[in-house]
């Protein structure tokens, strides 16, 4: 099955083409939905079979290149359109197609009755197609193709309801923001690719990584490559300083938020860093940069999540924060831990978003959690599954999030330092707090919505995916149980991914050893913190709301700062957007563009027009004239030859 891995790409492509071209003629939502989700389901099956086949191989042979065709062969550039199936890519493709399939099914219910139903499924399939290219590509060019493809789909889907209003602006403005911010990151990624080609004369993963492991390349070069690649990653994965687009991306339909802006696309940056582990490992300074950026993003995003009132906004900041964790892990060299968190996060965050969608659906597009309350009475299935996900993300012992987050925190301490762990743990506390603030305000307490609302449970097509994801959120972590619990077998997930990072591991310096006691102690501490946070959040937001009000009144300044997201948008507006706008308008547009560039362009145009008019007149239509010109031409050439003899 591994050799047929390209099917995982072709099925969604076929789905996109069918729904995109014939969708408006099919009209039947059921058929469109089945085509759309069926395509992804088939992809998932292929991935699954490939995964088992890969498991059956000896560990060192688990890297298969499926070459489709030679794509670009120009000068020194040789690019094959090929896919690389190895533990890393197969794990990612299982996540993307598996979670993607569930979200597709859910969307059949969620998007019911939308006038753009077929367009929605076509875009979703196109997204999966691009994402699979990103994950499976065996060289940077195919990866970049997917990278740009998912960016495009993200833009199309954020702006799906392009005629609606969103916050202060419109939905299309939010889509545009996502696109522009992503372009900044893509620019970095491109520079990184150019530098890689300059340094290693290849863009093929195998060549580049082999050369990176053995070639005497200076650390400065590695640092620049890694920095550029990381800039690309911060764009796509919403890290400081390019995270501002993700909260606005919530303007898209909720299944999109779940699929693209939580479970899959935003983890592309993490995947890319993980894929190029050897390059990052060769640039220790940039590794620290990655870890610190990840940590700060995790911390600040979580703090912003504490006070948001829009249910999707809370989850958006939570996503940014969790992505920060993944980069923290990658930055300290625990690449498999970061991928592990990608997986568990895909389960519970997709579930949280879908659950939120279910709530929004039943509350008729109301998204303010202050206007919910006691919904557990009306929507028990949504409630239970949402609670499971909330426990998972808060790191409740035994749930999937517990294992992955603990793995990251432990690595932050063991491979990083105590400060990393402390800030990470504080972030975990805040995570638990804002999640249970959300749960309490939504599902517990008094009903705070008017009588015009009649909350109801969503149909089965939406709740069944919720339940499946609920189960995964609980048990998903058990394949990555840390060695101290599972004993001799060690961490199975880490073991599986190990061959991918072998060269990188060799390059990294390992610091002294740590004892099991330390690990247990730190784990116990973070669990205790999280449980306390859950308790307080529950008590405050179900029974004693006045505490919350008093606190926010007392720390009014801090509250306002957090509520306004540290004014980052305003700061960017004032420091980047406005100056650019002003310079653009006053100078670039009115002088540089209107006068200089337009002048040159129009001047050239007029010149060409004029000369074209002259040249055109050569075509007189008189045959004798033509013959004369021909003779003159020959004579000129002869004359010139005689002169040059």
């Amino acid at each position, binding site marked *: 099955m591994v050799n047929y891995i390209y099917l995982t790409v072709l099925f969604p492509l076929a789905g996109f083409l069918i729904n995109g071209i014939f969708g408006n003629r099919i009209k039947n939502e059921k058929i469109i939905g089945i085509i759309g989700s069926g395509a992804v389901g088939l992809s998932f099956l292929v991935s699954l079979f490939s995964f088992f086949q890969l498991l059956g191989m000896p560990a060192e042979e688990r890297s298969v290149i499926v070459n489709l*065709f*030679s*794509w670009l*062969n*120009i*000068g020194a550039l040789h690019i094959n*359109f090929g896919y690389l199936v190895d533990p890393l890519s197969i794990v990612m493709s299982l996540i993307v197609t598996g979670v993607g399939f569930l979200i597709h099914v859910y969307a059949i219910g969620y998007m019911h009755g939308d006038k753009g139903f077929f367009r929605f499924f076509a875009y979703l399939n196109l997204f999966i197609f691009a994402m699979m290219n990103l994950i499976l590509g065996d060289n940077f060019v195919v990866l970049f193709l997917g990278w740009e493809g998912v960016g495009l789909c993200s833009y199309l889907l954020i702006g799906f309801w392009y005629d609606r209003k969103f916050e202060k602006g419109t939905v299309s403005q939010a889509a545009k923001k996502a696109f522009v911010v992503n372009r900044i990151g893509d620019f970095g990624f491109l520079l990184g690719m150019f530098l890689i080609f300059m340094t290693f004369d290849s863009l093929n993963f195998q060549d580049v990584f082999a050369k990176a492991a053995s070639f005497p390349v200076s650390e400065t070069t590695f640092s620049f490559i890694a920095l550029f690649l990381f800039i690309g990653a911060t764009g796509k994965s919403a890290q400081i300083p390019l995270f501002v687009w993700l909260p606005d991306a919530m303007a898209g339909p909720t299944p999109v938020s779940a699929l693209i802006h939580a479970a899959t696309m935003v983890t592309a940056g993490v995947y890319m860093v993980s894929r190029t582990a050897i390059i990052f490992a060769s640039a220790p300074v940039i590794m620290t940069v990655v870890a610190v950026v990840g940590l700060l993003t995790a911390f600040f995003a979580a703090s912003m999540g504490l006070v948001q009132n829009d249910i999707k906004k809370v989850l958006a900041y939570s996503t940014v924060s969790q992505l920060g964790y993944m980069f923290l892990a990658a930055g300290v060299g625990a690449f498999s831990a970061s991928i592990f968190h990608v997986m568990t996060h895909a389960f519970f965050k997709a579930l949280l978003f879908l659950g939120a969608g279910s709530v929004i659906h039943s509350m008729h597009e109301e998204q303010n959690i202050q206007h919910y309350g006691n919904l557990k009475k009306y929507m028990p299935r949504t409630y239970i599954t949402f609670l499971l996900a909330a426990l998972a993300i808060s790191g409740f012992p035994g749930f999937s999030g517990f294992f992955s987050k603990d793995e990251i925190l432990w690595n932050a301490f063991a491979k990083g330092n105590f400060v990393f762990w402390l800030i990470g743990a504080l972030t975990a506390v805040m995570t638990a707090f804002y999640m249970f603030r959300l749960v309490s305000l939504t599902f517990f307490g008094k009903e705070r919505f008017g009588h015009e609302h009649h909350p109801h449970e969503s149909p089965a097509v939406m709740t069944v995916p919720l339940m499946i994801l609920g189960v995964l959120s609980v048990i998903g972590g058990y394949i990555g149980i840390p060695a101290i619990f599972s004993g001799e077998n060690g961490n199975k997930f880490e073991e599986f991914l190990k061959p991918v990072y072998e060269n990188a591991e060799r390059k990294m310096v390992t610091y002294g050893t740590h004892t099991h006691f330390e690990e247990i102690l730190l784990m116990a501490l973070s669990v205790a913190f999280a449980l306390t946070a859950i308790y307080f959040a529950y008590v405050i937001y179900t029974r004693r709301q006045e505490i919350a009000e008093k606190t926010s009144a007392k720390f009014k300044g801090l509250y306002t700062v957090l509520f306004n997201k540290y004014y980052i948008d305003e700061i960017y507006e004032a420091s980047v957007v406005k100056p650019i706008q002003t310079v653009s308008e006053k100078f670039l547009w009115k002088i540089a563009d209107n006068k200089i560039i337009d002048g040159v362009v129009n001047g050239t145009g007029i010149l*060409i*027009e004029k*000369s*074209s*008019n002259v*040249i*055109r007149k*050569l*075509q007189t*239509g008189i*045959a004798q*004239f*033509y*013959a004369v*010109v*021909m003779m*003159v*031409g*020959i004579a000129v*050439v*002869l004359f010139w*030859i*005689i002169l*040059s*003899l």
Partner: protein
Amino acid sequence: MDVSNIIESLKLIKPEIAVSASLILVLIFDLIFHKDKKLIPYVALLGLFATGYFVIHQFGTTGFGFATKSTFKAFGMVTVDSFGTFFKLLILISAVLVLFFSSFSDEIKKTTDRLGEYYVLIFGMILGMFLMVSATDFLLIYLSMELLSLSSYVLAGFTKLRDRNSEASLKYVIYGSVSSGLMLFGISIIYGLTGSTNLYVINSLIQSPQINVLALSFALILVMAGMGFKISAAPFHFWTPDVYEGSPITITAFLSVASKAAGFGLLIRFIKTGFAAMTLNNGYWMLNPIFDWKLIIVILAILTMTLGNFSALWQNNLKRMLAYSSIAHAGYLLLGLAVFSNQGIAAILIYFFVYMLMNLGAFLIVMLIADKLGSEDVDDYDGLGYTSPFLGISLAVFLVSLTGLPPTAGFIGKLYIFSALIDAKMFVVAVIGVLNSVVSLYYYIRVLKHMYLVKPKIQPVEIIPGLSQKFLVLLLVVPVLFFGIYFSPIVELAKNCVVLLGF
């Protein structure tokens, strides 16, 4: 020349024999069934397919046929190699497509009584072109060019529906005979200098210092002028717009692709066999330093594409616009030749394949629209993109491809031409070529502007192509898009076909 030589040689020209047989067959059919001409296109098609069988079989075959002197037994009048076979295939595919075009064309339908002649003459053209791309003897070169020219003179004015048909034909004859006269003059000088008409023999003789370089240059310029006429390179291009505009659109399409391909095949073979001392290991040719080959071809190329593009800018008649555009494309193709390397030849082959698809496609759409609209003026295309989405989008694809933008095949063609130039460190020339593409963008996109952005003054006609017409359009659109993304098959094929027999 002994009998065994003749038999061996006959085996090498099976495609040409098939074409001649089809020609005769069509002629006989025309005589027998002169009441009902419906069958003739099918007979012609059958003939083309039979020829196609032999052409495809010929891939990989190499050899010299019809040696003129027993002392030079190895070198004949005809040379068969993959390079020539590639061009034959190209000519044949465009012939098949033009045959289908003809069956849709209203112009051709109006001349049913002379349909037999039409196909006979097309076969005459094909035979001429086949011989052109494999000729290595001046006698055959001249004869095959005349065969092609004479057939096309008649076809250019075939329909006689309007004055401009006859005008086209007459101008073509006048201009063609002048250039063929010049060429013949050049050939006779070369014969006088070397005592041979065989290119291989000439190649070995002109190495000697006794040859008068000035006389040889003079003769060469004259011969190349004759070939420049066929590929409509400036300043020998003046006939092109008038003839293309006046001819039936099917013949215009055929001339713009097949005739040009044959001209290029001949020119390349002429230079390579006649004047290349050797081919270096890196694929570059060592040319006999009679004069600065590179400079002459570069100047011709730049002149050709600039004149073509600049004149196309203000054309309102689409057929005429496409005529100028085909001149510009000849310029790009000459750039590939100017590199004088196998890489450049590969680029030309790739470009020609792509050019065949997109240019024939553009002509087909213009023809389908003209049949309904009765006009080829771009002003009459206003709003057509909305009423006839299928034709509109297809034309858009072809025009974008002709400009050379990704993800269409046209981009690949230009990419390989320009990368061959870059490889040869001819940066300035490459930049001029790219700038020329920019100019061409204007007049190609102007058509799209009219189809999609200009508010029509009157309600535009709705043009719904028939199923078979749709199929034919798709047959050209799909490869243009497909090869824009997955182009390694053409590239591989072209790279395998660059080797010319000889030096």
